[in-house]
């Protein structure tokens, strides 16, 4: 069997020589700030990597949450988070916890939970059940769990009658959470795109494998990415609009930079992927976005997820939301919510993840304890579960401001 180190394209590893030990990554690492168990991205990343040669030299690496903040702020282009993710896959290869194999299969969870949604959601809300799950699998009893919807996005899509399009086509990429757990976000995204006049094409699609990747299950993650890239590779030249910012990031760059994938179909798809707010902002900039929004007289906090920030495109949701009259959007300015995909679910990391997210939770409660906005699913679940606020994708506001319901 090939290891990640055999396969990855060495881009990340080669970047370690660019590290000048300036410490900027350390000052921004949200995990290092709250626990001495993680010695920080510089130490675990470019420094320890020199000693690895495909072996594991330092178990503290497991405490990296892969939020990617280090790579984002690095002024020298060191792929710190990518180096760490690759090294973790090697470290966990021969002793992957069963838990990590389960929680990384989002589609499977959705398929199991959706048909029995009320029972599944109820069971997962019971403390004894959660205690049992914690003991058996190591998923913390208080960690946020997705709530299955009673319908899938596909079942809505099949029954839905689109209006007559007045602009071109777009391909819609909802991701597996958008199929099973965040169905309303998927529906609202389609409705906004159709309101703007686009013909929305929605191919059958699976999971992007992000949770598999962040848990070090690289081979399975690559299989998922390849399959998804083929599914989305329709309507050449049209934008692929994503309502799941982290899954968009997987196709845009993480599959290449972390999994070392250079498949031409993936590259073709990756260059076409646009986060939905990124797409709307580009329309606004070219004068093609109707700005006759209905006012929304509210103040809300917006949190930009790490995996959106790591796409290096600024905060498009913030820019678009600020076009809505009456709406005051406060940037959370927080580094990370702590969940980092599945990190904050894990028994041994739950407290760290809560400490990481605390400044954000405080900010949300201070700005508006009832509603906050965030572009990715697991971050929304984390913020909601730790603040009690409803947390929506920014597209909900745009949907509302266009008077779509």
């Amino acid at each position: 069997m090939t290891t990640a180190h055999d396969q990855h394209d060495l881009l990340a590893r080669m970047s370690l020589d660019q590290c000048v030990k300036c410490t900027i990554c350390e000052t921004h690492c949200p995990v290092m700030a709250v626990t001495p168990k993680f010695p920080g991205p510089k130490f675990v990343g470019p420094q320890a990597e020199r000693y690895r040669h495909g072996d594991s030299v330092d178990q503290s690496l497991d405490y990296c949450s892969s939020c990617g903040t280090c790579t984002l702020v690095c002024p020298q282009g060191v792929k710190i988070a990518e180096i760490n993710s690759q090294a973790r896959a090697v470290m966990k290869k021969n002793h992957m916890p069963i838990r990590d194999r389960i929680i990384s299969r989002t589609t499977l969870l959705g398929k199991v939970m959706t048909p029995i949604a009320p029972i599944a959601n109820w069971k997962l809300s019971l403390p004894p059940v959660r205690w049992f799950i914690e003991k058996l699998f190591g998923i913390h009893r208080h960690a946020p769990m997705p709530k299955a919807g009673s319908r899938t996005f596909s079942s809505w899509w099949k029954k839905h009658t689109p209006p007559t399009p007045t602009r071109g086509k777009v391909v819609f990429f909802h991701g597996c959470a958008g199929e099973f757990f965040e169905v309303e976000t998927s529906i609202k995204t389609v409705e906004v795109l159709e309101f703007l006049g686009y013909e929305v094409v929605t191919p059958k699609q699976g999971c992007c494998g992000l949770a598999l990747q962040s848990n070090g299950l690289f081979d399975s993650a690559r299989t998922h990415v390849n399959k998804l890239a083929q599914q989305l590779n329709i309507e050449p030249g049209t934008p692929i609009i994503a309502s799941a910012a982290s899954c968009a990031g997987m196709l845009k760059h993480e599959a290449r930079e972390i999994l070392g994938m250079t498949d031409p179909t993936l590259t073709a798809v990756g260059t076409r992927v646009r986060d939905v707010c990124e797409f709307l902002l580009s329309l606004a900039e070219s004068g093609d976005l109707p700005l006759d929004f209905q006012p929304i007289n509210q103040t809300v906090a917006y949190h930009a997820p790490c995996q959106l920030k790591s796409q290096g495109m600024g905060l498009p949701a913030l820019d678009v939301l600020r076009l809505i009259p009456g709406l005051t959007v406060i940037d959370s300015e927080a580094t990370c919510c702590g969940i980092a995909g599945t990190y904050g679910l894990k028994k041994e990391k739950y407290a760290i993840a809560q400490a990481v997210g605390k400044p954000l939770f405080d900010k949300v409660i201070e700005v508006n304890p009832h509603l906050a906005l965030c572009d990715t699913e697991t971050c929304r679940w984390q913020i909601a579960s730790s603040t009690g606020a409803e947390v929506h994708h920014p597209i909900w506001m745009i949907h509302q401001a266009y008077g779509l319901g």
Partner: protein
Amino acid sequence: MTDTIVIGAGLAGLTASIRLAESGQAVTLLSFGEGGLPLSQGTIDVLGYVENQPVRAPFTEMSGFIKAHPDHPYAFLSSTTISTAISWFTDQTAGLLQPSDETNHFVPTALGAMRPTYLVPPSMVFPDVPRFAVVGIQQIKDFSPGLIAENLTRTANIQTRPYWIDLPARPGEVDSSPVHYAQALDNPDFLSRFVDKIVATIGDEDAVLLPAILGLHTDAHSRLTEALQRPVVEVIMAPPSIPGIRLNNQLVKRAKEWGVRVVLGSKVTGFTATKDHITSVTLHQAGRDQTYSGDNVIYGGGGFESGALVVDSYGKVREALFDLPLAGADRLDLITGDYWKPQPLFEVGVIVDPSMRVVDPGKPKKPIYHNLYVVGGLLAGAQRWIEKSGDGIAIASAYQAAESILGGDRS
């Protein structure tokens, strides 16, 4: 939607962004990573040394300095512009830096040297008292009170006595980042334990020198001064620099308050231009390249340390983004054998007209692009490290570029 694109989020880029945005411009700030301020000493230099002699009053010496260095960036600005820019900048720091009394401060470093610098935080002002306690913390490396005390006795002619205290910022951690101490000292409980340790350790010295770790978000310095009932001085340390981080945080906050759109984490890798006009710059984002357009571009990419200037293995120096013509690059002795001597390499850079637009050294009358302004570390003709002039060049050139753009807008 963008009037001006600013490239680089260091001192120059942030200064230009804030100045333009507060004047009503829509600014997009593109930065590959975080700028260099968190690595800086957290004070602002204008002119620290001339001919190896420390400068007492930079603006008194400025006209003489400019006369002696006609190719220096300060010669393209003017003493008045530099002074106006520095005074405007002080206001942006919301009290982090205290207003100047027109003279340099001399502040201690972690090696025990007294370093000239112009604007300082109140926590670094060196009091005029005879006896100092220098207090190190065993869990913080690169701050050795014995070394500092001995050197300060030599360099500052004061009495010093070194002390150590033993107080982990976090239980069980033997080697903590200054950031962890600063965060810990933001907590009143830790602060009072810190005070107790110091009180139990030091003697009746008149003032206390501590590593620059006194709080990131709170004014731990004032509380400590009050608790110890004598002046407390923060000593500049190796990075990460808490005073530098405070300054960076404040400037980024100010920029965002004025509506500057910050795009962090992608590198500007190319541009499109007509004969003398930059039409767009290309940002290498995740997944693809994206163009950004604005009426003007301010380029504050820094010098060699950030890769805006590169040297190949033949000693050929190049500006990496726009391939701008460079001054001072065509000589064989770019690096001399003496470490302490000025290195001609560091004077290599871009030259500009008085509005900060790039010109060809051979044809200095006409800007190469009428909407491309270069500021900060890219400018040719300075030995920033030796002169201690880098911050002043960054602030004044950025301010001047912004004024040129705003002046153009107004006319």
